[in-house]
């Protein structure tokens, strides 16, 4: 992320220090993670101590301080999905991508996370890729879905 992109986001919020979390969310969604230099630039632009930005960036799970893959897979491990076999889906996805929850593969293709209930239990087991939910998953079906992502 370069200075220009950061400045644009900061300008969108008129450089208001109170918009810090919004600004970080915007950077997160454009860049998929928050690089150290970006945080430094935000600190300077808003005149907010870097310690406060670090505090927030490490507090919320929505932020990542490590690079993320092009596609983010969220596998629901909530109760409803769990009883319908979510752990088998997770095992299969782990096997296919070679990564565990919290990790990103070397090609930067996928990042994997588990979540606890996506709010559509009737569709369980559910996996979500880049925000799009895929319901009634089974190990083989999950692999089919993953094939659609480059």
């Amino acid at each position, binding site marked *: 992320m370069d200075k220009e992109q950061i400045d644009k986001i900061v300008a969108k919020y008129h450089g208001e220090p109170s918009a810090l979390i919004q600004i970080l969310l915007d950077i997160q969604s454009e860049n998929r993670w928050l690089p150290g230099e970006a945080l430094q630039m935000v600190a300077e632009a808003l005149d907010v101590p870097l*310690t406060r930005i670090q505090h927030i960036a*490490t507090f919320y799970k929505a932020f990542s301080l490590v690079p993320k893959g092009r596609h983010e897979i969220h596998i629901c491990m909530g109760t409803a999905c769990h009883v319908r076999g979510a752990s088998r889906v997770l095992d299969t996805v782990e096997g296919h991508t070679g990564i565990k929850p919290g990790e990103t593969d070397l090609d930067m293709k996928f990042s994997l996370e588990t979540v606890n209930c996506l709010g559509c239990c009737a569709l369980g087991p559910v996996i979500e890729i880049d925000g799009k939910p895929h319901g009634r998953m089974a190990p083989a079906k999950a692999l089919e879905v993953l094939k659609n992502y480059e």
Partner: protein
Amino acid sequence: MSEILFTIDAKEVKATEGMTVLEAAKSIGVFIPTLCHHEKLEPYGACRICMVEVETGGRTRIVASCLYPVEPNLVVRTRSQTIDKIRRVLIEEMLAHAPDSVQLDELAKEYGADRDRFEKEPSFCIHCGLCVRYCAEIKKKNALGFIDRGARREISFIPKLAAEECWNCKECFELCPTSALQAAYVLAQALSPV
């Protein structure tokens, strides 16, 4: 400023509006233990060791004296079975994190705390926030802050600032009730680019 009359441990106190119970107690020589309080810093209320009983209108409540503002006719008790028990458990919990703290050791003796009640999990920091707040409020350098949350919360120096500012200051070192701060600083030194 209007004068407020009330009692602490059955002693009459004259305080002014806006004072905390802790400040009022100090003014008449009643000691209340504290860990996260510092006269020059904004009240924080993190450690809860300063808990006291306050009675108003026949109801008793347990409050943090470093935060609680004085009110007329308040009846404050700084020691009681309940208070001593609360302090004892807090000390036992904190000792699991910082077993070598001299301050905690003294408190443990006073309140009969069992050093080994909880399994040791030395993170050394008890999250009093003195170092972080001192650097932010007094020195205005913000060289260190808290990161992460819950059980994984810890202090962290900004390596660049630690290298530029901290060596000549180190004023926060003596505030730390444990050895966590110095350890974190040594680590930041090792990581700093300079």
